[in-house]
Each structure stands twice: as structure tokens, then as C-alpha cells.
């Protein structure tokens, strides 16, 4: 079969389909979004009736995937690293119940925080939950490991994590496919007791999970994904995990690497192989993309041997993604640099699009808030976070999905008034509804702006579960109808919008303002499609 040119994300999606996937569950999040989108556009998925609709958030996605697995079918759940924080409850507990049909949890980490608020390393979560983790180093491995992960999951009845990082997720290369495996039939577990986590059951299956650990380590020892490549110069050994391996190899294109290399792409760690490398070599350099999780374990609390090098001793940078030059420096290889960037070159930060409705919302909000001074607007995760930048300088905080409303509530509770939240429509249904209920329950004097652009904008315009529902959701949660105000964020409505926002800020209870206008990106895409359809 000829090779397909696929993003790492697309390779994962294709592999899941070829492995007999019955459903993908996800909430959009860079750099994981393209996996679900690939399945949504796949003919193969449509023919197989593979579930592919976006979930409300990562927790609901994870739970649906668990349900599909319990029914005996293969399920994939995809999220960005911080999404796993949202899904952590079902994720952790699914390790104890175990899987029935193959259950693969794909987490895409974002070292260097290209599109994220932190660079947390999901391998810690895999270790925390005590489940196996695959960490592909290239697109072909992303395909192969996804395909194998489903088998592994069914062999040991355990959810398996697949961990990628931005660079692999968004890089394209040739990928060879395997044979297509049919989907599982519905097949109930002979002993569903393990799916009922009453304390009495949970204690039993937690022990079973602990017993599985030796098998997982044995699998890692013999796995072809973990290989020890010998080298003559034992003054240094290299442990390279995931795409860290590529950056090591990039420095040895013309000459073979003189040092032994242990490539690790399957966890738990293969302890015997690591021991062999440590015994053979005077020192060990650990090159891993993300937090120094392997390095920290090898050093131990006291770093007694002092011969482990990596991100913790400054041999490699402590933060951010790796690159070939970091490894060159660490290995004492001479680097070449092109000309320096001329001083006239200035930064070009991302900005709200031309004619974006958020611009008009922020302009109106800023004017309405002017009498009260700065520091009273709490925001959220989405395009509108760019309201932090000039010329708006409109917001005081952004932390996590849905937090704007509850941060405003906490501020109001503390006496900081007025307190305003700015949240997008999709983020609101993702994690903001319960926050709003807290405020309603106490009738906290906050004003919530739900910027409704009819889509999940930042990740590329995916459907929003809030579409056409926001007013009713707020009403259902108990916001008084006269304090649910829908406005149109347009320049020619500015005065009126300022007036409405000012009124609601003055109101001593929960008020919601819903500036509603479609995202200019999805609008122009829709118009283009319409035009093409008419031709």
C-alpha cells in the first residue's frame, strides 16, 4: 500500500479507524483537534457508522468512551493536556474498573505553550493512574502505536494512554497503513462487578491493577518500541523518549552516534534496559519532551550519583519543547547559526480578526466599566482571551475553562464590585453552567457576558453545543428573565450596548448579557460553501 501524507494527529485517527474503532469522543483543543476532525470527514468512518460528534467537554467525552468500552466496542477519547484535568475523575477511575472493548486515551501535550496556559506532561497522569502509555516519536509510530494500543487495551483489559506533543501532532510525514480490522460486536463483560466501584469492589480491582503492573513492565522490556542501540563510547549513554529521540538522531546524520542510546516510547519504564545502560555508561543524558519525569526518577531525591544529565541540571533547558540545537549543545556538537534576526523585526502577536464580534463586545464593555477602574473583569479560554492585549487591555484574569464566572463570584464574595465575567458560548457549556448555578444559588451580584459567536472559534470553528440554547439554559439555571439581555455586537449598536451593560452591572444580582453575532471565520466559510454550491 502506498504511503499517505498525514499529520501525526491524522495518523492516529486513521490508525484508530483501521483498528476497528466504533467511536471517537472529544472536545476541541489544540493540538488534538485534528484527530476528531479527520474522523468526521472520513468516508471509512461514515461507512462504519463510527461515532464522531463533539462532546460538551473532556469529562463527558471520557465517560462516553468508557461506556462504549464497557459495551465491548473500541473507543478513542482525545483531548489536549489540560483537558485531562477536566476528565481526570473518570480517567483515574477507569484504570481501576479496567476496559472491556479497547479504550485508548489520546492526550496531546503542548510544551512551549504554543496554544495553552501550561505545559503539563500527561505521562504523569499515566503513571498516576498506573496505566500503560505509548509516546510515539514519529508519524509512523503514531499510527502503529494507536493500532497496537487497542490490542494492548483488550489484552490486559486496561485503558491505554497515547501521549503526543504539538510538534508531532502538527507535523506531516508519510505513513504506511495496516490491514483494516472489523469493529467489535457488542459484548458484555462476564463479570461486570468491576465496573461498579463500590468501595468493596474498588478495593479488589485496585489490587488487580497493582498486580497488572509487573506485566506492563515486562511488556515494556520486550517491546520493540523500547530499544537499546549500542555505541562504542561509554563515557555517555543517552535516554531519549518520544520525539526527543529524533533530535538526538538529527545530530548524527553523517556519522553514527558513538554513544549507546536507549529509545523509550512505551511506559511503564523498562527498568532492566535502563539498568543496563546505567551500568555500562559513566553518565546518562536524558532527552525527553516535556517535564523531566524519567530524569527525576533516575536522579532520585538526593541525586547521589550526580551522573544524570538533562533538564534538571541545566544540560538541556528546563522549560519548553526541545529541538536539534538543544541536543547539539548538550552533546558538545558544534552548531552553525544563520544571520541574527535584524533589530527592526518586531513581534506579531495573534489578534482578533477583522470585524470580529468580540471587538465590539469589548469596546462596549470597556466603556461601561470605565467608571469602575481596572481589575474587575474575569475572562476565560477562547479567542476573546485576546482581550487581554492592546488596544483592549480589558481583562484581569484567565485561568481555565469556565473559571471566569466563578472567579467573578469569588471576587464579588470578597467585596470587589462590580464583578464581571466574560466567557464564550462553547466554553460556557463546557464548564460555565455549574459556575453560573453557584452564583444564582446565592444571588451573587455578578454580570456575565456570554459572547455567543455560534461556534468554538479558537480551535477552528467547530459546532457549539450552546447553539440557540444559551438564553434558555440561563433561564433554566434560574437567572431572572429580565436580566438575560441579548445584544448585537455591532459598531452601530455601540451606544445602546453600553447602556444595557451599564444597567446590568448596576443590578445587584445575577445578570447575563449575551452579545450574539456569528464568528467572521465560520461566516465567510459558510458563504464560500454556499457560493460553491450554487455554481
Amino acid at each position: 500500500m502506498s504511503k499517505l501524507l498525514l499529520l501525526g494527529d491524522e495518523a492516529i485517527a486513521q490508525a484508530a479507524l483501521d483498528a476497528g474503532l466504533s467511536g471517537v469522543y472529544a472536545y476541541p483543543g489544540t493540538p488534538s483537534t485534528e484527530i476528531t476532525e479527520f474522523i468526521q470527514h472520513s468516508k471509512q468512518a461514515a461507512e462504519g457508522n463510527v461515532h464522531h460528534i463533539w462532546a460538551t467537554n473532556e469529562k463527558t467525552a471520557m465517560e462516553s468512551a468508557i461506556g462504549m468500552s464497557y459495551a465491548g466496542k473500541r473507543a478513542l477519547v482525545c483531548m489536549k493536556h489540560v483537558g485531562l484535568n477536566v476528565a481526570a475523575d473518570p480517567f483515574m477511575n477507569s484504570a481501576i474498573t479496567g476496559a472491556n472493548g479497547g479504550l485508548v486515551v489520546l492526550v496531546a501535550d503542548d510544551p512551549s505553550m504554543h496554544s495553552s496556559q501550561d505545559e503539563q506532561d500527561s505521562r504523569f497522569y499515566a503513571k498516576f493512574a498506573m496505566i500503560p502509555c505509548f509516546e510515539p516519536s514519529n508519524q509512523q509510530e503514531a499510527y502503529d502505536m494507536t493500532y497496537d494500543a487497542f490490542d494492548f487495551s483488550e489484552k490486559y483489559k486496561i485503558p491505554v494512554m497515547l501521549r503526543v506533543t504539538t510538534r508531532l501532532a502538527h507535523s506531516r510525514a508519510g505513513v504506511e497503513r495496516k490491514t483494516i480490522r472489523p469493529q467489535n460486536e457488542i459484548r458484555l463483560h462476564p463479570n461486570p462487578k468491576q465496573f461498579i466501584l463500590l468501595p468493596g469492589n474498588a478495593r479488589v480491582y485496585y489490587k488487580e491493577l497493582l498486580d497488572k503492573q509487573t506485566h506492563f513492565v515486562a511488556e515494556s522490556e520486550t517491546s520493540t518500541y523500547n530499544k537499546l542501540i549500542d555505541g562504542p563510547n561509554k563515557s555517555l549513554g543517552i535516554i531519549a523518549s518520544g520525539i526527543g529521540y529524533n533530535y538526538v538522531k538529527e545530530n548524527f546524520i553523517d556519522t553514527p552516534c558513538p554513544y549507546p542510546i536507549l529509545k523509550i516510547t512505551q511506559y511503564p519504564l523498562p527498568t532492566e534496559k535502563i539498568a543496563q545502560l546505567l551500568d555500562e555508561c559513566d553518565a546518562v543524558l536524558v532527552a525527553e519532551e516535556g517535564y523531566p519525569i524519567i530524569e527525576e526518577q533516575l536522579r532520585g531525591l538526593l541525586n547521589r550519583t550526580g551522573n544524570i544529565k538533562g533538564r534538571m541540571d541545566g544540560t538541556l533547558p528546563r522549560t519548553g519543547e526541545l529541538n536539534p540545537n538543544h541536543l547539539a549543545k548538550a552533546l558538545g556538537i558544534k552548531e552553525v547559526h544563520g544571520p541574527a534576526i535584524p533589530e527592526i523585526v518586531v513581534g506579531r502577536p495573534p489578534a482578533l480578526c477583522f470585524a470580529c464580534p468580540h471587538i465590539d463586545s469589548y469596546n462596549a464593555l470597556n466603556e461601561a466599566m470605565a467608571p469602575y477602574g481596572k481589575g474587575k473583569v474575569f475572562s476565560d479560554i477562547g479567542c476573546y482571551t485576546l482581550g487581554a492585549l492592546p488596544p483592549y487591555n480589558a481583562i484581569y484574569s484567565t485561568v481555565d475553562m469556565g473559571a471566569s464566572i466563578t472567579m467573578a463570584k469569588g471576587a464579588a464574595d470578597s467585596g470587589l464590585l462590580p464583578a464581571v465575567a466574560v466567557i464564550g458560548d462553547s466554553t460556557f457549556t463546557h464548564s460555565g453552567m455549574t459556575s453560573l448555578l453557584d452564583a444564582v444559588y446565592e444571588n451573587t451580584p455578578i454580570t456575565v457576558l456570554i459572547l455567543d459567536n455560534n461556534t468554538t472559534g479558537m480551535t477552528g470553528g467547530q459546532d457549539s453545543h450552546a447553539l440557540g440554547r444559551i438564553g434558555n439554559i440561563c433561564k433554566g439555571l434560574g437567572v431572572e428573565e429580565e436580566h438575560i439581555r441579548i445584544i448585537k455586537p455591532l459598531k452601530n449598536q455601540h451606544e445602546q450596548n453600553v447602556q444595557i451593560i451599564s444597567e446590568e452591572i448596576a443590578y445587584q444580582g445575577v445578570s447575563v448579557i449575551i452579545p450574539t453575532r456569528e464568528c467572521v471565520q465560520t461566516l465567510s466559510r459558510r458563504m464560500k460553501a454556499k457560493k460553491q454550491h450554487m455554481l
Partner: protein
Amino acid sequence: MKIDIILAGVGGQGILSIASIIGYAAVKKGLYMKQAEVHGMSQRGGDVQSHFRLADYEISSDLIPLGKADLIISVEPMEALRYLPWLSADGWLITNNQPFVNIPNYPDEELIKKEIDNLPHSLMINADQIAKDLGSERSANMVILGAASPYLQMDFEALENAVSEVFAKKGDDVVALNLACLNAGRTYAMEQIR
């Protein structure tokens, strides 16, 4: 054989179309390829780049090491300069000379041109104008690709075929326009080389 290219521009300017056409031609030729793209937040009018690598051996890193890029192909002149540390000693910089100004502190255009002219191997082209004259400014990226084509170690015909294939879904007119832009860019570059 290897060729490493940094593709540069501003989110929405079409650098990924350039990449997909070179990629299509390369894969037909049986070359190994890796192409790292930028998705997500930066696409909103921020600076974007793609590391594009071709070789007749398996490529390891998705990222090009500093000082190893054979080409910087840019659809925006200031963005071209942002990636100079990647340019190899005999590498070429091919760029549109039309600035995309969406920031208040955009530098003096003349200073940018001077910096580009000072490089040992550079080529600037008014791709916007050429594309506009041929039918649509939106195809400026194909003019740039045409201008870079003499440096790609690839048959021009293979690129033309790739343009036809990649744009086929959008209709014959779009294919014809993009082919015309590709050719115009190449013609301009060949004249400059001479």
C-alpha cells in the same frame, strides 16, 4: 540529497498551500518528507511558519536545525527576516516584497528591503501585483512558489502537475489562475538569475 525549507508568513496568507504543493510533488518523486505546521492561536493574524524537509533518506527531526535551511520562502518581507538564524551560509531567501501590516509598530519598509538586499542570496518579488494582474491577489502564494522553484531541485513540470492536482477540486479556472501565477513567478526569478 536533502532540501530544508522554512515557509514563513502571517496566519491566513496561504503558506500551507505552498507546502502542500511541494509536498505533493515530493511524494510523487518518492522522497521522504516532514512538514511541521503551526495550528491554533497563532493562526489569528500572528506570525506563522512551517518547517519543510525533503530528503532521499529517512528524516529524523520535524524541526530544521539552525543554520541548515537551504531556503526561506516567505509571503511577507518582515516575516522572511524572522527566520534568518535558520538560513545556511549558501541558502536563498525568496520573499514577497509586499508587507502585511496588522500591527501598529510595523517597521519602515525601506529598512526591511535593505536588510534583505544585504543578504548574499535573496530574491524579492511583488507577488501581490503579479497575481492581481493575472486575476486574483489571493494567488500571490503561487507566484512566490514559482519564484522559488528554480531552487527546489525539482522538475518544474512536477510542480505544475501538483498545482493542477491540489486545486482540481476548486475548478478549472482556479487551476488555470494558479498555474499562470506559478509560471509568472518562475519567469521573474529566471530573469533575475540571468
